[in-house]
């Protein structure tokens, strides 16, 4: 809300510079975002929070200034001198929706002269960014800015059948608003209608057909209260907002309506002449005053400082609360009508604290000592991050909301589609992602285009899978690394060891051509459960490097991780090593060889370590040679060479029998 410094000074005595004033206002919660000199005046742009509609008028700001700084208040003149014919001769007003329009007042001014408004008024309106129109419109704007109460002037002669009806819109009705917007109205919207049609959208905007023009002679001046939510709903549904709707949405001072109405006709009379009709059409629901009790003990408890009763009462009086009863530990009071935001004791506590000064409340640390422990999610994520950055990986963060391209539609974890956003900003960001890998691929591309060819990146974030009421948010770890297949696979395997996960992984052939190179991808299974997907990046992705992709279900890793460690005695007896190389068919995977060996269940066999695969001159076509190392150990004695040889022979026999391997001389 923009205010004029000179205008403000008319209502409150202050001897502060605009900057000093801004600082004082900021300290009580009216943040002054900007101060601009305008001719011999200053425009202060005040950020008014949505709970303080009373400060959407300059008088309201003046009240705050008086409470915060001191200085007496002066309210503007509103005496109306003359009274002519009875208002009911000119108009008949009825309110069909008293809940949506709790109070409706109107005045009629006849025989006015529409002309530019006086220079002083134009100057003030211009200072706060309003465009002067004519003396009638300018007065309604001026009074709204002064009091916070919106008003609307109709051209009386254009109101059909001399009627004003506050009612709901009828099906098929439409209106062209003052700003030129044509809108179809819906039956739940509140309108001001004449005998034939809607002439204004209640509280939002008047209609173009009945607006005040240069030829207007007689006006009908509306000053009312419309229900907040109704105004907000209508304004949003029609896409029309105005200074008026902004104020009604937040709530106006129900007791300020008569004052604003009188003030406006007085100014109209002053600027445009005319005869003011006697009497006011005043259809009203009674407003109850709010009485609240403030307990001194509660004030102390919430703020943590003992504010003396006299001080509290002084503050509340400055805020124009009416102190009813002031005994010992309680203050009973009545809240002024313009402070609709104060309805509870806690609201009063805030008011006292605000004017007392937040910075005058002590800084205490009387809370008790308490230990906190890291949860498993944090431990696992930290462990993975430390491990990967130690290997030269960069952590990235990419958006959870993505486009609907085929790449971004990759869904490794669910058969169902992704979750769409009903009100996206742009089509490029309209769906919650189902995989992190497409975003990592885009990050790789971005860096390629900016001169970084080699990249090793990872992200820890959620994917969003269709669920019941709420989606299933799965924590994932995804990696994109410019390495060969076995290098990244090894990094993943080591990271499992680092998390204390002992379960073995199975690597099962998998195909997702949008991500992975054909025949070089795997679904990773652990204890019968899918934990991730891994493979060489598809050549279609256009990378110039050999890259690998991994996406793992982090929730499973968190569940299976184990950081409890127990010391194992070091082996007392030496390990015996034997190397073997076998020639097998191309189709035979290492996992079959390994399984065949471990299935022999030889007690002394501790480890089987692959070290080489060879294809070449000495190996027949369609075959490959696989070399590995076997470790034998006994917990209670030194193994003799001959007994290891017997075990080794058993392994070779088994390999020959089951996999038809051929032993290669090493």
């Amino acid at each position, binding site marked *: 809300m923009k205010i004029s410094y000179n205008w403000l000074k008319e209502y409150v005595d202050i001897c502060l510079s605009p900057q000093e004033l801004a600082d004082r206002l900021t300290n009580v919660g009216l943040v002054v975002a900007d101060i601009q000199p305008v001719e011999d005046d200053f425009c202060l742009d005040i950020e008014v929070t949505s709970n303080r509609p009373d400060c959407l008028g300059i008088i309201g700001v003046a009240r705050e200034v008086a409470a915060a700084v001191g200085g007496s208040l002066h309210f503007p003149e509103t005496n109306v001198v003359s009274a002519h014919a009875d208002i009911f001769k000119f108009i008949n007003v009825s309110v069909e929706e008293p809940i949506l329009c709790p109070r409706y007042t109107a005045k009629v001014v006849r025989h006015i002269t529409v002309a530019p408004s006086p220079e002083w008024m134009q100057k003030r309106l211009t200072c706060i960014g309003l465009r002067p129109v004519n003396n009638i419109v300018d007065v309604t704007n001026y009074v709204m800015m002064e009091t916070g109460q919106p008003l609307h002037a109709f051209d009386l002669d254009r109101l059909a059948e001399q009627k004003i009806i506050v009612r709901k819109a009828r099906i098929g009705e439409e209106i062209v608003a003052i700003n030129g917007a044509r809108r179809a109205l819906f039956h739940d919207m509140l309108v001001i209608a004449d005998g034939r049609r809607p002439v204004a959208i209640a509280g939002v905007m008047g209609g173009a057909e009945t607006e005040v023009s240069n030829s207007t002679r007689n006006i009908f001046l509306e000053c009312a209260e419309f229900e907040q939510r109704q105004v907000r709903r209508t304004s949003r549904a029609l896409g029309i907002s105005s200074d008026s709707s902004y104020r009604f949405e937040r709530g106006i001072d129900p007791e300020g309506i008569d004052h604003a109405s009188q003030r406006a006709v007085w100014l109209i009379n002053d600027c445009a002449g005319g005869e003011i009709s006697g009497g006011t059409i005043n259809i009203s629901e009674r407003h109850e005053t709010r009485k609240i009790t403030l307990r001194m003990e509660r004030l102390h408890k919430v703020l943590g400082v003992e504010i003396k009763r006299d001080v509290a009462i002084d503050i509340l009086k400055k805020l124009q609360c009416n102190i009813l009863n002031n005994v010992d530990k309680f203050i009973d009071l009545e809240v002024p009508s313009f402070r609709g935001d104060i309805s509870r004791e806690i609201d009063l506590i805030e008011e006292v604290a605000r004017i007392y000064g937040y910075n005058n409340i002590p800084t205490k640390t009387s809370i008790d000592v308490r230990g906190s422990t890291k949860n498993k999610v944090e431990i696992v994520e930290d462990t993975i991050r430390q491990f990967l950055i130690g290997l030269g990986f960069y952590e990235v963060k990419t958006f959870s909301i993505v486009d609907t391209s085929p790449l971004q539609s990759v869904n490794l974890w669910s058969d169902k589609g992704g979750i769409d956003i009903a009100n996206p900003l742009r089509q490029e960001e309209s769906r919650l992602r189902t995989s992190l890998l497409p975003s990592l691929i885009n990050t790789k591309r971005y860096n390629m285009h900016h001169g970084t060819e080699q990249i090793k990146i990872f992200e820890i974030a959620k994917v969003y899978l269709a669920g019941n009421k*709420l989606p299933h948010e799965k924590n994932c770890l995804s990696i994109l690394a410019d390495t060969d297949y076995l290098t990244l696979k090894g990094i993943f395997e080591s990271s499992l060891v680092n998390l204390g996960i002992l379960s073995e992984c199975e690597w099962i052939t998998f195909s997702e051509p949008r991500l992975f190179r054909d025949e070089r991808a795997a679904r990773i299974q652990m204890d019968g459960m899918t934990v991730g997907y891994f493979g060489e990046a598809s050549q279609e992705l256009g990378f110039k490097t050999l890259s690998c992709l991994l996406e793992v279900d982090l929730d499973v890793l968190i569940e299976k991780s184990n950081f409890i460690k127990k010391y194992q005695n070091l082996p007392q007896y030496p390990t015996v090593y034997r190397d073997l190389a076998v020639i097998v068919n191309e189709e035979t995977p290492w996992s079959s060889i390994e399984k065949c060996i471990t299935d022999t269940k030889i007690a002394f066999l501790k480890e089987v370590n692959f070290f080489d695969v060879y294809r070449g001159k000495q190996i027949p076509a369609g075959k490959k040679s696989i070399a590995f190392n076997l470790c034998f150990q006994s917990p209670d004695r030194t193994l003799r060479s001959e007994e290891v040889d017997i075990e080794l022979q058993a392994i070779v026999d088994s390999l020959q029998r089951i996999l038809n391997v051929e032993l290669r001389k090493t």
Partner: protein
Amino acid sequence: MSDKLEEVKRNLQDETKTIITRKDAEQLKIKYLGRKGIVNDLMKLIPALPTEKRAAFGQQVNFLKIEITDIIEEFIKRVSSEAIPKVKTEIFDITLPGKRPLIGKKHPLTQTIDDIKEVFARLGFDVVYGPEVELEYYNFEALNIPSDHPSRTDFDTFYIRDDVLLRSQTSTVQIRIMERQKPPIRIIAPGRVYRPDTVDARHSFMFHQVEGLLVDEGVSFADLKGVLNQFIKTYFGQNIQMRLRPSFFPFTEPSAEVDISCSICGGKGCSVCSYSGWVEILGAGMVDPNVFKAVHYDAEKYTGFAFGMGVERITMLKYGISDIRLFYENDMRFLSQF
């Protein structure tokens, strides 16, 4: 017996000093390790020992044998290389740069979240998480933001369905925690939040917040100031000042915006702080009784405070980053700086 072994070792060390040629070394090897050498002589002593000592002594002799072998082999190697005088064709350049392994980095936002978590962990706050796709109730009603209320304008939100949305604030986690836990509560909740803001240098439709909540008997606004002051001094520096301004959040009452003295200009005024000397860093306040009502807490018995801060904003302030989009572009030249 082990004295004897020690003596053998000492003698050997003396004798190695006389080694000049390879031949000298070979002779020494025969003397100690040969078939009729000193070590074998020691072995011969074993059968004469009491049964229970044989094994231990045997082991000791074996160790000695290995040790002697190593020492003599080392000398053989040394004298053989010295014996052939080399022509110095190349000079080892000790100034060549080392082979540096790549240094990986945590994302700067993760670093900030970790730092915030650490400060609050020391003050006894546990880290908790909540869903990002939320029921409207947790994002609004339970936080005292009724529908059609003008304060909703401050919280424009992405919707999935009528009553399901992307949380626009991490305050949702307050409710989820209080629903399943009784006081005392002391938590922080970091996470992603979403608002339909058009992306520019200062806005992003996705960003990170850290929410904090402390509820107990006898918690006051002064305690809120105390905890936030601790955080600010630890995180930003002991010389940083804190200022609170009244503000409005539907879920706290009284509410405050918290500013810190500008670390760039030291409070004198610069472009970062818009020449005010202060920068806004978080919002806070005492938990509104209506929020306690929503989670069935006795608002007379318990009081508490909540606070929320934007991770991007704090990170930008700390490093002097002027464009929020840099965090999500993930340019290696950006990430490598932190």
